[in-house]
């Protein structure tokens, strides 16, 4: 025990003597979480408050294009700029002046109305007649296409969202036109209500946690856990450097000649670097609670989840430290440990779902993601932060994180023993 305490104290001294390194260790993750949350939050706000300029080339100039224009205006997402030349519109979008150009084809309203009328007439003419007597009438109207030109730099998610909105809009216009055609065929009185044109199927978003006071997920609720975890795992970088330094300074050689188990040496490092991870986590929470509201970002809602959050941070920290101990044991030089640690953490974050949600990954990557300790940690954090679960629900993730620490540390001890077997 005395040797473990001495090792811990030595690690504390080494860490506190490098004030620059300590500042980087604590400040950089804070800077990271503030930057990312600010960017994401302002992106949401931009979408909510400012409109995206789009070009509309209206070759139709009929009821359909009027309806599309009215819907676009009503969406509050777009600022519609009218143009006349499709080629110029294409050029503007290609240059990035507009993110999107919509070209409504000529005679769309007229042809749609006639096509629908033709169909309605066909349907009505069948009433009371034997099917075999009715010849199939081929429509003379060819399908029309609304052309969309997207800026090549536009993200796929934005494209999908716009495509889906326009598709919905067109479907709605088509339905209305069909209703209108039936109305015209069945009555001469335009004011007579024959159909209830209200949507029969609607949807409503319900909080699955069935909580009395559900937490509304915002950029802070998502970013604090994700980037805190990222910062916690970044601890493998200074830990790896710390261990390689000991090898280079010759102090490690002296330790090998002393009657002290390698596990004790690692124990001292574990205690100190795990404490660093927990302090990092506490700072992140403080930033989310007190600094974010001051700079106009959503406040972090932790309610009475603090103990559970620290439990998750503790186990995530353990997993990160275990990885750092293994890396520090194997690496011989800073050139090996530092770039590997930095890159590996980014990879773990990527496959762990810090940037792209796991469900949005390809099947294979989803399987790989299950092997990432950052994924276990992130799930546990989201469970507590957003799904409001209890301790028993996060036990599987905690067990995985704790198991990861044990396995990596045992491998480190085994590797050390084999490498230094005499």
């Amino acid at each position, binding site marked *: 025990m*005395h*040797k473990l305490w*001495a*090792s811990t*104290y*030595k690690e504390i*001294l*080494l860490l506190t*003597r*490098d004030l620059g390194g300590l500042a980087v260790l604590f400040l950089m993750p804070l800077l990271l979480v503030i930057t990312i949350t600010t960017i994401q939050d302002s992106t949401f706000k931009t979408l909510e408050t400012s409109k995206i300029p789009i070009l509309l080339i209206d070759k139709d100039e009929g009821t359909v294009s009027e309806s599309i224009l009215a819907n676009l205006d009503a969406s509050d997402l777009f600022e519609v700029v009218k143009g006349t030349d499709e080629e110029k519109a294409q050029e503007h979008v290609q240059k990035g002046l507009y993110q999107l150009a919509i070209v409504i084809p000529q005679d769309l309203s007229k042809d749609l109305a006639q096509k629908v009328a033709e169909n309605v007439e066909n349907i009505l003419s069948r009433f009371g007649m034997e099917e075999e007597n009715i010849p199939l009438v081929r429509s003379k109207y060819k399908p029309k296409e609304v052309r969309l030109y997207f800026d090549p730099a536009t993200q796929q998610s934005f494209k999908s969202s716009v495509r889906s909105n326009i598709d919905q809009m067109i479907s709605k216009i088509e339905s209305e036109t069909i209703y209108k055609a039936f109305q015209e065929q069945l009555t001469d009185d335009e004011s007579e209500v024959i159909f209830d044109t209200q949507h029969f199927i609607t949807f409503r978003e319900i909080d699955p946690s069935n909580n009395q006071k559900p937490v509304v997920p915002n950029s802070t609720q998502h970013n604090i856990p994700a980037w805190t975890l990222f910062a916690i795992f970044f601890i493998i970088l200074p830990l790896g450097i710390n261990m390689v330094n000991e090898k280079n*300074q*010759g*102090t490690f*050689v*002296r*330790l*090998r*000649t*002393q*009657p*002290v188990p390698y596990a004790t040496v690692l124990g001292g490092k574990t205690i100190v670097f795990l404490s660093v991870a927990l302090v990092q986590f506490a700072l992140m929470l403080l930033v989310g609670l007190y600094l974010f509201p001051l700079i106009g970002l959503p406040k972090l809602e932790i309610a009475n989840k603090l103990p559970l959050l620290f439990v998750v941070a503790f186990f995530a920290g353990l997993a990160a430290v275990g990885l750092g101990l293994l890396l520090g044991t194997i690496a011989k030089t800073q050139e090996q440990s530092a770039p590997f640690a930095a890159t590996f953490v980014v990879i773990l974050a990527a496959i762990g779902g810090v940037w792209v949600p796991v469900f949005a990954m390809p099947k294979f990557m989803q399987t790989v993601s299950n092997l990432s300790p950052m994924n276990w940690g992130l799930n546990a954090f989201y469970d507590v932060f957003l799904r409001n679960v209890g301790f028993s629900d996060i036990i599987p993730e905690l067990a995985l994180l704790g198991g990861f620490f044990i396995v990596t540390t045992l491998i480190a001890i085994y590797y050390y023993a084999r490498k*230094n*077997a*005499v």
Partner: protein
Amino acid sequence: MIQINQLSKKYKGATDYSVYNLDLTVEEGEIFGLLGPNGAGKTTLISMLCSLLKPSSGSFTINGLDYHSHKNQLKRLIGIVPQEYALYPTLTAFENLTYFGSMYGLKGKSLRDTIQKQLEILGLTDFAQKKTKTFSGGMKRRLNLISGILHRPKVLFLDEPTVGVDVQSRTVIIDHLRKLNTDGTTIVYTSHHLNEAEQFCTRVAIIDHGIIICQGRPSELIANQHEIRHLEDLFLKLTGKAMRDHA
């Protein structure tokens, strides 16, 4: 005290043995000098005796104990002063010594007193609270020595303990080693300072290409050779004047 039997070491990928079938006995209370040109096998031999390197073959015992069955006992018995400084540069001298002393199980007042005493003997008391990165080469050598003797080892291995230090530091180090030896510590040391070894060692072995080419008391070795007046003359006669550069 130290019994070495047919000890050999061949590094992975090397064509020659660094130490080959070496037999040697070091008696309790001796100051034994391992002398030899660069690459002769001195550091390899000491590293094996300190359990830092695995021998390719052969065996050794220290105080009747072998490494395989008495690892921790042996580690408490021996002290090592490596050729490279084994110190934490951002810790003070006192903090370095406290840590290394603790790893031998020393603690409390007795550890603090031992550190103060050793710092005083080696002239470092005024620098106890200074970070070792500010120390000169001589000061680091002396601190390196203290780190290896805090637990009063029965056997002390020193790999070139006076390399790169001024005459003053060297004198203090050698005097202190003599005192330790008088107090019962057996010393095995390597050096390129042959005059120092001639004065300091009770017995020496000249080692080259991994084998011992002569051993005995310095005065006897010199006396047995015609026209040899110093250990250095004997050394050159036995090992030649050719450079021993190796990479």
